[in-house]
C-alpha cells in the first residue's frame, strides 16, 4: 500500500499495549475498589479531553464542552427517573439530545472566531449550567438529580449488574475506547484533513471549495455527541449529578489535560488525561493544597516539556540519535 502522511500510520503497538494494560488494570491492582474508581474517572476524563481535542482540530477550544457532557448526563438521568427507562435507552437519548443542542448552538457559535469563540462558548457553558439550576422542578435545581441507577444487562443466560464497580469499569472502558477510536479514525482521514486545513488557514480552505461553516458545525456536533454519551455514563456511575458537576472548571481541566498531553495528535489528550487524573488523585491526600500542587505540576510540565507528553517519543529518539553520533 502506498504509505503517505495523508493517512497517518497509527502506532498500533502503543495503542494495543495501552488497551491491554487498561483491560488488565483491575487484576494488576488486585481489584482495589478505590483504584478501579480512579480507572473509571480516567476513562471519563480521556473521553472528555479527546472529544475536546476534536474541536481543537478546527482551531478553537470550547468551554461549553462540560456543559454538553451535562446535557447527556441530565437527559439520561431524567429518562430514568421520570420515564423509568434504563441507561441503555438514556445513553442514546442523551447522545441525540446533546447532538441536537450542539447543532443548534453551533450555528451562531461557529460564526465567531478566535477569542470571541472562547468567550461565546464560555457563556454557552455557563448558560447550560444555570439552566439546570434554574428550572428547579424539572432538573432539580442546585440539588441536582439523585438515584440514577446503573443499568443491568440481561442476556438471558447471563446477568451483569453494573452497580458492580468492576463491571462498570469495563463498560466505561468500552465506551472510551470507542470514543477514542471514532475520533482517531475521523482525524486520520480526509475529514480530519479538512478540519486541520481550516485550523491552518480558514481563508484558503474556503477558496479550495470547503464549506467551512458546515464542517465546523458537523465537527462540533460529533464532538458534543460523543461527550454526551460520556456524560450519560458519568451520571449512572456517580448516581448523583448536579449543575456543579458540569461547570466551566470541568472544561478547563480538560483543556489542561490537552495542553499537558499535547495538541497535535490523539495521543496527546489521552496521555494528558491519564497522567493528570492520576496526579490529581495522588494529591488527594494533600487536602487543601491539592490545587496548588496541581498548579505546580501544570506549570512545570509546560516549562519542562513544551509540546506536551506526546513529544516524549520523539525526544527519546533524538536523545538516542545524538548518543549514537558521539
Amino acid at each position: 500500500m502506498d504509505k503517505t502522511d495523508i493517512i497517518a500510520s497509527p502506532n498500533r503497538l502503543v495503542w494495543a499495549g495501552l488497551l491491554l494494560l487498561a483491560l488488565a488494570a483491575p487484576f494488576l491492582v488486585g481489584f482495589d475498589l478505590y483504584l478501579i474508581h480512579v480507572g473509571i474517572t480516567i476513562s471519563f476524563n480521556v473521553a472528555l479531553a479527546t472529544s475536546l481535542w476534536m474541536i481543537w482540530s478546527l482551531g478553537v477550544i470550547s468551554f461549553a464542552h462540560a456543559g454538553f457532557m451535562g446535557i447527556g448526563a441530565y437527559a439520561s438521568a431524567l429518562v430514568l427517573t421520570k420515564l423509568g427507562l434504563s441507561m441503555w435507552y438514556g445513553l442514546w437519548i442523551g447522545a441525540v439530545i446533546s447532538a441536537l443542542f450542539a447543532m443548534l448552538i453551533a450555528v451562531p457559535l461557529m460564526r465567531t472566531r478566535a477569542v470571541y469563540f472562547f468567550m461565546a462558548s464560555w457563556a454557552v457553558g455557563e448558560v447550560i449550567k444555570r439552566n439546570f439550576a434554574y428550572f428547579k422542578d424539572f432538573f432539580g435545581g442546585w440539588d441536582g438529580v439523585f438515584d440514577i441507577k446503573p443499568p443491568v444487562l440481561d442476556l438471558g443466560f447471563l446477568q451483569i449488574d453494573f452497580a458492580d464497580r468492576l463491571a462498570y469499569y469495563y463498560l466505561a472502558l468500552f465506551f472510551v475506547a470507542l470514543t477514542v477510536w471514532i475520533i482517531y479514525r475521523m482525524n486520520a482521514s480526509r475529514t480530519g484533513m479538512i478540519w486541520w486545513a481550516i485550523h491552518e488557514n480558514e481563508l484558503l480552505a474556503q477558496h479550495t471549495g470547503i464549506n467551512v461553516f458546515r464542517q465546523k458545525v458537523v465537527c462540533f456536533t460529533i464532538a458534543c455527541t460523543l461527550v454526551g454519551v460520556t456524560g450519560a455514563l458519568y451520571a449512572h456511575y456517580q448516581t448523583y449529578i448536579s449543575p456543579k458537576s458540569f461547570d466551566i472548571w470541568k472544561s478547563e481541566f480538560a483543556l489542561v489535560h490537552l495542553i499537558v498531553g499535547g495538541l497535535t495528535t490523539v495521543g496527546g489528550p489521552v496521555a494528558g488525561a491519564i497522567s493528570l487524573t492520576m496526579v490529581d488523585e495522588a494529591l488527594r491526600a494533600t487536602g487543601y493544597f491539592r490545587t496548588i500542587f496541581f498548579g505546580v505540576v501544570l506549570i512545570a510540565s509546560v516549562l519542562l516539556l513544551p509540546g506536551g507528553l506526546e513529544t516524549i517519543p520523539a525526544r527519546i529518539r533524538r536523545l538516542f540519535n545524538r548518543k549514537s553520533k558521539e
Partner: protein
Amino acid sequence: MHELEARGLQMKFGGVTAIAGLDLTVEEGEIRGLIGPNGAGKTTFFNACSGRYPVTAGEIRYRGQKISGMKPHQIAAEGLVRTFQHVTLFKQFSVLKNVVAGNYLHARHSYWGSLLRTRKTREAEAGSVARAREILDFVGLGALMDQQAATLAHGHQKMLGIAIALAAEPKMLLLDEPCAGMNSDESREMIHLVRRIRETGITIMLIEHDMKVVMGLCDRITVLNFGNEIADGTPEAVRANAQVREAYLGSQAHVA
C-alpha cells in the same frame, strides 16, 4: 458566452469606493492581465469574483452563471479558483498534503467513509494523492513533496499556492501577483508555468506589478485606476495609451 463577465460592478467599503461601475469580460483560453496603480481595485475585483466580499451593486457572471452573491466554496466548485497575493498555505502540512487538501472538491469526501475507511474512500484518497503528485511534478515541486510547507523558499511557496489552486481542477484561475517578491529566475519560471497552465485549457487572469512580466505574458491587458477601467487592449495598445502613462507616471502638466 464569456468566460467571466462583470457588469456595472461596484464595490464600496463604508464611504470608500474601491470599484465604481466596472464592465469587463474575459474570454475562454486567454491570459488576461489586470494592472493599475496601488489602490486601483485590482485585488478587490478578485475578492468580488471569488466571493470573499459581497458586491455592492452590479453582477458578475462566470460562464453565463451569476456568481455574485455566491459563497467562496460555491464559486470554487463552479471552477473559478483564485490564489492570494500573500503566501497563503496550510503551513504545517507537508507540500503533498497541501495539494491533497486542495483536491477536496474531487475527493468525494464522506464522514462515514472516513470513519469506516471503506474501499471507495481508500480509492478516492489514493486517486487524490496520485493527482496531487501529478500536479506537483507539473509545477516543479515534485522533489520537495515531503517537506513542510512553512520551510519552503518564498518562490516555492508561491508555486505551491498555485498547485493548491490547480488541485481544485479549475477552468479559470485568478492569480493575484504570482511573481511578487520573486527574483528574476523565479519570475521566469513562474511565467513559464503560467503559460503551461494555459496550454492545459485553463483561462487565466492575473494581477501583476512587474511590467515585463505582464507585457510578455498577457494576450490582453485591462488597466484600472481609482476603481475605473481606463484602458483595455493588447499589450502594445495599452503601452501606447496616454491615460495609462498618466496614471502610472503622473500627468505631463505636473511633471513640467
